[in-house]
């Protein structure tokens, strides 16, 4: 064991963790599989010229310049392009960097691996021209490029609204924005919303942008199907009932070349799941998240989880959690101590509590109807790596195979390169629907290392 701190992921949470731990004098290794720091939130074009295109709109990197400069802190060793391999041996973390497998024995580890888009299969979702809300944000922030000309935005949650507003502001023709949830705050939630007036105002501003550009926003509506030969040419949309089924009698066709389907984010909890941390299923936070102490330590001592990977709830929460985890990890390795550190910690804990109280209201506003599983038809591919359709998977669950591990063995679902990121949530919803149990009761297969594919050559070194 050393007094070094390993931070996995250099997005908002990871950067805040690294900066805080380093400020207390701890030595930090910060790794990320991207070459650029900042994760998805702080994504920006490498070229200055491109950065100036709509720089007024996408100023995250400018506002976060301080945080992004964490990589030049002398206490921080930044390892860009490093793929975390896993905790293969007790206390030893391994990662592939610079075409080599490297090991370290950190005194504390902060997992800050972010979130991925929730896969919600519907007919046509694999067509070129269909993309996630997060992917659109990346395209706008990173390339300053529009995904298409006539765009339907459909899905669930605040990120989808933000993507729609940004598309409009960048001059795209957004034909409609569909939000699957009722999208109305229950009265009891109003006081909570006022806890964070600034964030509330931003949400209202996004709606105002849509209104100003006369883009119809329809709550309780959803996509039924995307069609086209070779790429998206049209989409069918319909109102959605309480159980998540679309009302096909009121379906309409729209002529579009792009469908942005963003059904929210799910925590990228592969790292904590792969090492056997205890997890709970929290639908409001996107699914399976590690159980943590007030200082964000998981059930495995010395392993902390911060940000979206421990509950998808936005960048403000990720920044606060990163700071708290960085401080707690620094205390654990002996770099931080004393009353000032404790005051700092108590302040962070308080701010987090208030923010999470606000988030409860946001979760209530965007609670999706049903499971949306009924959007997929029998011939809809649900596992993209192994090309397994919903019908095939359902044939097995109906014949009594109601365990994700067995379904995996039979159909090869989740055995491909994504390790189930794109299909396991669907598998869990399917099993839950077929057996009448809650998604929280469906255990998922434990991810096996490497958590992302690595080159065979890199595992054994160059030459």
């Amino acid at each position: 064991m050393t007094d070094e701190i390993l931070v996995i992921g250099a997005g908002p949470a990871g950067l805040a963790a690294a900066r805080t731990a380093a400020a207390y004098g701890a030595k930090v290794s910060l790794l990320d599989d991207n070459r650029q720091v900042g994760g998805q939130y702080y994504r920006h074009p490498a070229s200055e010229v491109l950065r100036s295109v709509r720089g007024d709109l996408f100023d995250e990197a400018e506002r976060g310049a301080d945080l992004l400069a964490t990589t030049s802190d002398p206490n921080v060793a930044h390892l860009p392009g490093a793929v975390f391999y896993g905790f293969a041996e007790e206390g030893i973390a391994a990662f592939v960097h610079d075409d080599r497998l490297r090991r370290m024995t950190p005194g504390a580890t902060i997992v800050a691996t972010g979130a991925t888009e929730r896969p919600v299969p519907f007919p046509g979702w694999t067509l070129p021209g269909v993309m996630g809300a997060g992917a659109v944000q990346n395209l706008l922030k990173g390339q300053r490029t529009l995904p298409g000309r006539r765009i339907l935005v459909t899905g669930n949650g605040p990120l989808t609204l933000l993507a729609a507003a940004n598309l409009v502001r960048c001059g795209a023709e957004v034909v409609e924005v569909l939000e699957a949830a009722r999208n109305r705050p229950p009265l009891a939630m109003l006081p909570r919303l006022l806890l964070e007036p600034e964030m509330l105002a931003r949400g209202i501003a996004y709606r105002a942008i849509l209104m100003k550009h006369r883009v119809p926003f329809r709550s309780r509506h959803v996509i039924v199907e995307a069609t086209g030969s070779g790429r998206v040419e049209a989409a069918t949309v319909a109102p959605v009932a309480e159980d998540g089924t679309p009302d096909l009698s009121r379906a309409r066709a729209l002529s579009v070349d792009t469908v942005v389907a963003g059904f929210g984010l799910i925590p990228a909890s592969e790292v904590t799941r792969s090492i056997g941390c205890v997890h709970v299923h929290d639908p409001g936070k996107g699914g399976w998240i590690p159980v943590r102490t007030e200082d964000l330590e998981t059930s495995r001592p010395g392993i902390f989880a911060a940000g979206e990977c421990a509950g998808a709830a936005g960048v403000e929460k990720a920044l606060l959690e990163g700071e708290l985890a960085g401080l707690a990890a620094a205390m654990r390795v002996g770099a931080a101590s004393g009353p000032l550190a404790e005051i700092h910690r108590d302040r962070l804990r308080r701010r987090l509590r208030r923010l999470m109280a606000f988030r409860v209201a946001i979760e209530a506003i965007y609670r999706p109807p049903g499971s949306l599983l009924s959007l997929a038809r029998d011939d809809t591919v649900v596992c993209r790596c192994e090309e397994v359709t919903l019908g095939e998977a359902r044939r097995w669950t109906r014949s009594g195979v109601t365990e994700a591990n067995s379904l995996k063995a039979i159909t090869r679902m989740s055995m491909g390169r994504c390790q189930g990121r794109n299909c396991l949530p669907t598998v869990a919803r399917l099993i839950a629907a077929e057996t009448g149990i809650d998604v929280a009761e469906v255990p998922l297969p434990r991810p096996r290392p490497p958590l992302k594919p690595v080159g065979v050559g890199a595992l054994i070194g160059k030459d």
Partner: protein
Amino acid sequence: MNREAGIPTAVETVVVGAGIIGLTTALHLARAGREVLVIDKAEPWREGSAVNAGTCALQNKATNLLPAYRQGLVEWRRLAGELDEDIGFVNKGGIRVAQSAEDVAALRAGAADQAAQGVQLDWLDGNALRDRAPWLAPTVTAATFCAEDSFASPLMTGQALIRGLRAAGGGIAVAGLTGQRTQGGGYRLSTAAGNIDCRNVVLATGAWTDRAAAMFGIGISVRLNVNTLSVTERIGQFMDNLVVTHIAGKFTLKQFPNGSCILGGGFQGRGDKDSGRKELDLDQLQENIRFQCSVVPQLRDATLLRSWVGFTAIAHDQKPTLGPMPGRPGLFFAFTTNAGFSMGPYAGRMVADAVLGRAMPEIARDWTPGRFAA
């Protein structure tokens, strides 16, 4: 889980262990019209049989057990034909390679031993070797080809067997064995899901055979192996679906029809069979992959999808333990020691026959559980 409406309280034969040997034993019994229930501590087909590399080869086996492994291949072929579903059985032969001068000498001696047992081998070197397997590293100077070497898909085999057994009327239940006592000319097994009375018990318990035997008061010692395996992403077919093994040992490699390569060989991870904990040893994994790349260099350009470890067990005397336990009517052992996948279906056939009252074949005389009688 594959749900059962509880477990029966009485059944003629209980097979403990839902791996290759347990399921084939039960399949034969069910097809013979017998009442049989397979119990396992967890979901069926989860341990050694499910997570091994699928090799069903002769060339990498100990010479003294060759006849049994050959019978194993006969049974594999039969299984592939008899089950309703594809088990991914591929018989394109295999090559065993040699790199150093010592390797070549050992390969020659080994080939002579195998030939003495009637195994047909082709000696390959020089241009003949390059023509046959241009994807081998130049450091591979000689090889032997055996047309009998094969492999099967552990994933497909398990699911086909589970459904084949159910279709034949056999049962499978999650019910870990916790103890037993003799009862009315048979046994009362206590399990995590309740008691079961039975006339016959078959212990097809693989790496846990020592633990199961101890519940019957029998001392068998086995050594646990924690084998490392890796799978690559699908790549274009380039090795003609041959099974590649190495005379120096610790090497199995094959490319499945879907294009993914399975790298095995028995480099050791860490694990504990009582807690079920298993983990990779990174040094061993790297040594494993380095060795593989030294024989088939283009593996370097493949993408590794994942690595894992699985249990196998070696008997202290390196012999199988198969058939009825003398003096303990109704108690049968079904343990092959190592390479259970290759020999498994033959072990299943022999033990099922023994349960049906037939004599064990001559070959198995040495393998009687009687050698462990107290």
